[in-house]
């Protein structure tokens, strides 16, 4: 069991429709099941996926259901790497977008907490974006499995 193995990966692309936010978080949660995450870890990850996908739909694509959001996930040892990307509007000012409570769409009752939540819930968080080309969010988190807690 100790031989080096290629990372376990998955990739899913889906329509930028709000009903797919639940699909996205359940998919990622299912992918990491075999790491035996705690309920808290699972909830954190679901929240983070929900934030990233919601951003892509609302801000990347202005709710255009003809566009697509992609999630790539890979598990390396006990670390989950996640990439959520869109090919939409992109973000003009990343620093502004990342500040807590800032929202570019106040008329939509957005809380402006999406990036803050992702940064807080994950071990690593990085955004790259190019106006007119899209946004890519890369994150990772080490899953402390329940087994580890019992040992």
């Amino acid at each position: 069991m100790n031989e080096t193995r290629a990372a376990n990966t998955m990739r899913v692309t889906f329509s930028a429709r709000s009903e797919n936010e639940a699909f996205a978080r359940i998919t990622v949660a299912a992918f990491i099941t075999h790491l035996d995450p705690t309920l808290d870890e699972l909830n954190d990850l679901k929240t983070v996926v929900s934030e990233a996908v919601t951003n892509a739909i609302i801000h990347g694509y202005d709710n255009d259901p003809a566009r697509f959001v992609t999630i790539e996930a890979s598990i390396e040892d006990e670390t989950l790497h996640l990439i959520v990307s869109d090919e939409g509007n992109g973000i003009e000012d990343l620093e502004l977008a990342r500040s807590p409570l800032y929202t570019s769409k106040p008329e939509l009752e957005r809380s402006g907490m999406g990036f803050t939540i992702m940064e807080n819930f994950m071990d690593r968080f990085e955004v790259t974006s190019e106006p007119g080309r899209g946004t890519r969010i890369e994150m990772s988190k080490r899953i402390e499995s329940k087994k580890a807690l019992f040992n």
Partner: protein
Amino acid sequence: MSLQVELEHQRNVLIVRLRGELDHHTADIVRLRMEEAILKSTVQHVVLSLKDLIFMDSSGLGVILGRYKQLKAKGGVMAVCDVNKSVYRLLELSGLFKILAVHDNERAALTSLEVVS
């Protein structure tokens, strides 16, 4: 899994019970149902009862903040109760506890609002 909104009026308090998952997709229905109810002259305060809310993200924070503002404009207050651990963390992280009182259950929340009104 989607979201159900149950509304109950107790004197001048509107109790809002949310069951399911509150995200961007389900936020609209919560906003619409609550907005309409708060517009009624009989509603002064709101208790958000979250015992069966199994998931919430920042879209939920946005809706709560929006209804808080609506309620504040008519002089009311908002309280939350039965908040699970992950929702609690989100409310804490976003600073919403500065404007929302948190209680263990509906009865405690209602009692606190009777003192206010």
